[in-house]
């Protein structure tokens, strides 16, 4: 078999390939050749083949068949083989392959090899990809090498130790004795890696931290030597001697000095020296200064030093170099929490950075600006931020908009300013604002009562300009619906009132309905707004027409609303004014309550249901309940908070099932009930304790006791639902006169075939003892044939620890209940 081609040849060949396919072909051919060569167990050319394999791996082709070969190379005696073998191991192997464990023995032998380069190779590989098992086995060897005098090996051993500690934190103790004289080394490489090792140990364990605090003077001395010493050509980078080591030491000092007065004390001088003496013309000097500033901010430094640090950062901000500005903004962001006032001084520079062309800088400046906003500078800052919002990239707009909303909420100097700001955001970045900003804004508007006229006027004008930004349109249509009368009457103190006629307003709203730019949600908003205007405007006919047109809309949401509004016009005209009255001021928390439940019902717009169902307090109960029954008492219902312990989240799905669920039920269906007003105060009738309609009827049908045994008494009270005289609504009250509670109380009922029974969920399933409370449940019985009502009931509960079950027949229904 001819000798496999050299790596160089392979690379040359691959580079001649003109297409990806050609390259793939060449590589596959070569892979096949390599594979057969591996099979032949050819020692001489193995390293060449593996080298080629690594090249192909870098280009992205699979190379896992070379893993074992790498191991064989590592085991060989030749340095060349070992080198390629270890490189291959680092690139191709990792903890997840079991093969890597085979390396452990090889590495162990190589760690004790006579040649330092071989030892170095094995340390390197162990430090890069050693798994925890390998580290555990070989930690002892590493520790031995940490104490050697050979600086080449010592520095590698130090970094390897770091890797071991990362993988197996328990072994940290083992390396402690070896660290004793690490810092007395002269060799910078060893110093550097020792500082890294110490840093890692301090970060991981607070005990180590306190142990190493005593090294602070030594570190300070080393740093001093570095700065003071003259030109040293070896470690010089652009005129500063070993900046990498300086930076590392500063970082370690930061960790050691944090929270500790004595160490911070010891460091103050050297930090001041570094801060003042370092040359800042090159990146190197700035790197050191940056690190110094971070250290000063973190330790308990004296105030003079802190001011110095912030001033350095301020100087950085004015630097031409973008990198420096970026770094300054990042560190200012970190310090703004602690040293707010100092950072405020640089506010104007930061705001200027908003106009920078560089995306990373703009983002940092934006975050920092939001952190700097406070009550005093809100107006100025907001102007700049709004200007920024206008001109920034779309990625930023969402974050910026939310930031502006938050800042405005916290620091708004006046309501008018707040509303203006939000409107400005909506008009410029309308499509990027978050969804919850619409209800938040609406809530804000309702709360600022004196601004209603001004708000609605501005929103109307904005709508005339542009109807493409959905959140703006939604808020505007809601407001016009609510405060349309203010708009038309032309009373506005804050601004020049504009003359708007009712027809113009309706034109705009209808325009929204038909426009292609409006989403379904927006259309729902505008339909409801039109409906609300029917009580505020005089031209009802036009509104009636619009509403009836949408009764046949394809969009189910719109159709449902239109149909319901139509019904309002036709049958319930007397209710309309009350129903569509002005919304009360919403409490932020309360409005979250029902809207959550409502939203799980599949309704997308919370406020629409709010309009219908939130308490218009003067509304008479009868009309409300009639409405409920009209709609089958179904999807409208969930707004009525029952104190029933049913999870609101389940309201969604089962509610819609309720539509068909009027069959015989054996057990309590877990659907929220339209609880009859007198049993629980429902949200709809909040604050309304006046007579519900049904009280009247209840007085007509006397209540009866259905069951009374063992302390458990069940009483039936009757209501007759008005529109459908065949449905009798029975409420059971269960009371417990014994001394022990009855838990897991379940009431079940069955009726003869000619009846239909619907059992709604009980108020609870614990009947408290000694008549302290009662469990109520509603039963609806459909009795189309007007036969005598009979019922068999089954009760199960746990009383005094033992389960009790009972059956009973209820025959003594008063005749009025089923006639």
């Amino acid at each position, binding site marked *: 078999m001819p000798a496999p081609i050299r790596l160089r040849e392979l690379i040359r060949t691959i580079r001649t390939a003109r297409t990806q396919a050609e390259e793939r072909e060449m590589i596959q051919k070569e892979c096949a050749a390599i594979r057969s060569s591996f099979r032949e167990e050819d020692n001489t050319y193995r390293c060449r083949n593996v*080298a080629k394999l690594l090249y192909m791996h870098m280009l992205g082709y699979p190379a896992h068949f070379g893993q074992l070969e790498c191991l064989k190379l590592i085991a060989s005696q030749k340095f060349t083989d070992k080198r390629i073998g270890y490189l291959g191991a680092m690139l191709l192997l990792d903890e997840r392959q079991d093969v890597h464990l085979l390396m452990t023995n090889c590495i162990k032998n190589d760690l004790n090899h006579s040649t330092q380069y071989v030892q170095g190779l094995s340390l390197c590989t162990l430090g890069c990809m050693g798994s925890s098992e390998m580290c555990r086995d070989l930690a002892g060897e590493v520790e031995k090498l940490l104490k050697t005098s050979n600086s080449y090996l010592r520095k590698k051993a130090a970094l390897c130790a770091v890797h071991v500690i990362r993988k197996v934190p328990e072994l940290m103790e083992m390396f402690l004795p070896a660290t004793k004289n690490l810092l007395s080394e002269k060799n*910078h490489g060893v110093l550097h890696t020792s500082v890294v090792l110490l840093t890692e140990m301090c970060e991981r364990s607070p005990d180590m931290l306190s142990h190493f605090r005593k090294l602070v003077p030594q570190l300070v001395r080393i740093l001093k030597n570095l700065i003071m010493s003259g030109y040293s050509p070896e470690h010089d980078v652009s005129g500063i001697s070993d900046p990498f080591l300086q930076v590392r030491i500063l970082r370690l000092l930061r960790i050691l000095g944090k929270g500790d007065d004595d160490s911070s004390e010891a460091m103050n001088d050297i930090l001041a020296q570094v801060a003042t003496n370092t040359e800042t013309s090159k990146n190197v000097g700035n790197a050191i200064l940056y*690190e110094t500033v971070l250290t000063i901010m973190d330790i308990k430094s004296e105030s003079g030093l802190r001011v110095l640090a912030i001033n350095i950062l301020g100087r950085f901000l004015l630097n031409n170099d973008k990198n420096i500005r970026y770094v300054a903004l990042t560190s200012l962001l970190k310090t703004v929490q602690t040293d707010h006032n100092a950072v405020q001084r640089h506010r104007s520079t930061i705001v200027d950075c908003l106009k920078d062309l560089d995306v990373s800088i703009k983002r940092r400046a934006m975050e920092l600006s939001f952190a700097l906003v406070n009550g005093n500078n809100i107006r100025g800052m907001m102007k700049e931020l709004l200007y920024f919002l206008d001109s920034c990239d779309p990625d930023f707009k969402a974050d910026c908009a939310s930031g502006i909303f938050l800042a405005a909420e916290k620091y708004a100097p006046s309501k008018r300013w707040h509303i203006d700001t939000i409107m400005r955001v909506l008009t410029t970045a309308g499509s990027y604002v978050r969804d919850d900003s619409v209800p938040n804004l609406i809530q804000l508007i309702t709360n600022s009562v004196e601004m209603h006229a001004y708000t609605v006027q501005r929103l109307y004008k904005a709508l005339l300009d542009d109807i493409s930004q959905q959140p703006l349109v939604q808020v505007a249509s809601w407001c016009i619906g609510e405060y349309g009368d203010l708009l038309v009457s032309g009373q506005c103190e804050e601004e020049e009132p504009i003359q708007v006629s009712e027809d113009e307003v309706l034109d705009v709203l209808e325009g929204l309905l038909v426009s292609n730019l409006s989403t379904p949600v927006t259309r729902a908003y505008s339909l409801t707004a039109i409906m609300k205007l029917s009580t505020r405007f005089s031209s009802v006919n036009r509104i009636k027409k619009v509403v009836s047109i949408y009764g046949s809309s394809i969009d189910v949401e719109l159709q449902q609303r239109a149909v319901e509004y139509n019904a309002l016009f036709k049958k319930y005209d007397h209710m309309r004014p009350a129903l569509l009255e002005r919304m009360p001021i919403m409490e932020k928390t309360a409005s979250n309550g029902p809207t959550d439940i409502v939203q799980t019902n599949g309704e997308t717009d919370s406020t629409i249901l709010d309009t219908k169902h939130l308490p218009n307090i003067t509304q008479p109960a009868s009309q409300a309940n009639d409405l409920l029954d009209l709609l089958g008492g179904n999807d409208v219902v969930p707004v009525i908070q029952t104190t029933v312990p049913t999870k609101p989240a389940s309201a969604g799905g089962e509610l819609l099932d309720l539509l068909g669920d009027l069959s015989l039920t054996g057990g309590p269906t877990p659907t929220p009930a339209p609880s009859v007003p007198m049993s629980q105060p429902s949200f709809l009738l909040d604050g309304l304790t006046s007579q519900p309609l049904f009280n009247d009827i209840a007085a007509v049908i006397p209540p009866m006791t259905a069951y009374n045994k063992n302390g458990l008494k069940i009483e039936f009270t009757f209501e007759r639902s008005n529109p459908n005289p065949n449905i009798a609504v029975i409420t059971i009250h269960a009371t417990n006169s014994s001394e022990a509670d009855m838990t897991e109380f379940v009431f079940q009922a069955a009726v003869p075939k000619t009846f239909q029974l619907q059992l709604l969920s009980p108020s609870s399933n614990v009947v408290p003892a000694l008549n302290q409370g009662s469990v109520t449940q509603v039963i609806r019985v459909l009795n189309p044939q007007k036969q005598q009502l009979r019922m068999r009931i089954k009760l199960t509960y746990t009383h005094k620890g033992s389960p009790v079950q009972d059956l009973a027949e209820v025959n003594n229904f008063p005749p009025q209940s089923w006639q």
Partner: protein
Amino acid sequence: MIKAILIFNNHGKPRLSKFYEHYTEDTEQQIIRETFHLVSKRDENVCNFLEGGLLIGGSENKLIYRHYATLYFVFCVDSSESELGILDLIQVFVETLDKCFENVCELDLIFHMDKVHNILAEMVMGGMVLETNMSEISTQAEAHSKMEKSEAGIAGAPARAVSAVKNMNLPEMPKNINIGDISIKVPNLSSFK
């Protein structure tokens, strides 16, 4: 900690890729592609720091890059490294390569990928900076290659011959041997009588 070191050219072809955290091969290639997309979009005069792409850890990791002629050198680091320090490290790395390869160019990196890996291994180990002294690093790398050459045996003969010639200190040979002007004096033979 340094998570990855990538070198690729202006078209996105990888010239060196070293990961200090484990990813699958596919992910590695994707990371290279994603990094190339992010870095190549950057203007010349913006800062050298970027948020990391999604694959390599998102906003916790930063990409610090430098553009030299046709190559991008990208170091992906986490928050424990100083950004400006890493910029300097990239500079030191490139200068070391320059020293070891004598006026390094992209072709050198292409054809001597293993040597570049070795130099890098002398500088960064396990994601942490090992040595920053350029002369130290290049001495070590040279010692390695010397060891390799001494072992190479017969197969290394041509290479050794080449390096032997390079190192040969030939005395200054006359460069031009100008034959044109030699006048050959024809001896004046006396006539016979």
